[in-house]
């Protein structure tokens, strides 16, 4: 994962030991991936409640 910009801007970031920066990077990446999975699961649940007529439209809007 490339170094996230908001963290790089923090003067504090440069003062952290290298292993602490690494650990925080890993935790952040894990959090991002976990949230991605949560979001997709939530969207799948949500789509079940969208009226059938609109479902395809909503799916298309959410697609990349």
């Amino acid at each position, binding site marked *: 994962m490339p170094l996230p910009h*908001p963290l790089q801007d923090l003067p504090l970031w440069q003062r952290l030991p290298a292993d602490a920066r690494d650990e925080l990077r890993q935790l952040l990446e894990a959090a991002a991936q976990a*949230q991605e999975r949560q979001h997709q699961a939530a969207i799948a*649940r949500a789509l079940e409640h969208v009226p059938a007529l609109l479902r395809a439209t909503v799916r298309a809007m959410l697609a*990349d």
Partner: protein
Amino acid sequence: MPPLRLHAEQLRLARLLGIAPECLHFLRELDADALAALHDACQAVLLARHQPLFRRLANASKLLPVSLSAWIAEHALGPLLCARIAGELSVAGTLALCRHLPAPFMAEVSLHMESGALLEVAVHLPDATLQEIAGTLLAQGEYLLLGELVDTLPIALIHRIAVRFCSAEEVLRTSLFVEQPLRLEALLEMLPGAELQRLARLAAEPRQGLLPEALSLLQRVPPGWQRRLVDAAIADGDATLEALVREVDRLGLWASVLPLATLLDRAGKWKLLKLALWREVDLRNRALAEVTRPGLMPYARNLFASLAPHERERALKALACAGQLPPP
């Protein structure tokens, strides 16, 4: 630094990253301000990563009737995703959804919202809804967010929300996260007199661990409130004052207490000195070791100068017995 704030920032960052607070052991050298800065930066990273998705969800929600969108938000999307989507909606759009959402759910969503976005919405919510959200956050012990809201919402709104703060403990725990003295006043003004006295009892209980927070509150409120809080502590009785002295001794906080002791009247100062000098030898020696440091001598002088002559004589004899020079 009051440990409660450090602990709250650790919890907040851990919550954002979806981990137990213990997993942040590698950041244990950081103070609360540093952890808060890290939290905000990490939140920005996570928001940026999925923002296109949040924007598409916000646009898709506009295809549906508001009531259906609100139902889906509550029962399918959950508070985290709702908070992210709210950040992509207009304030009017978010408020339209809020009209169909229960306050406890909105309280959950508020925990995940950016401060600026939350404030923009909160100022437009009905008082009853805001009060119910505040009540939910209080029940869940979310004092950090409550403190931020007390600090940033219009002061007229604070007075209306503050009716939910019924107990000394709630005010004490929230006050740690409130920076502006006027806002602290708004909280304290809602407390009944009996609860004001209970503040001192809470601060004196070792298992509560709230003395640093109580001292922090005393140091930040306007002088009029400092006197009221100190007077309330004295009025609660000698047992409370003695318990406070013991807790100050246990935590080694004489240096923080001595400047505040100048707020006491003569009788209060004499009571404090009697507890510090004549209760236990070890307590006396620890107290004297701290309060006779050069930076604190003006406060020690103030304490002695206020005493009646016979009281001063007794106190000076106690200092001589302890091998400490009396304050000049």
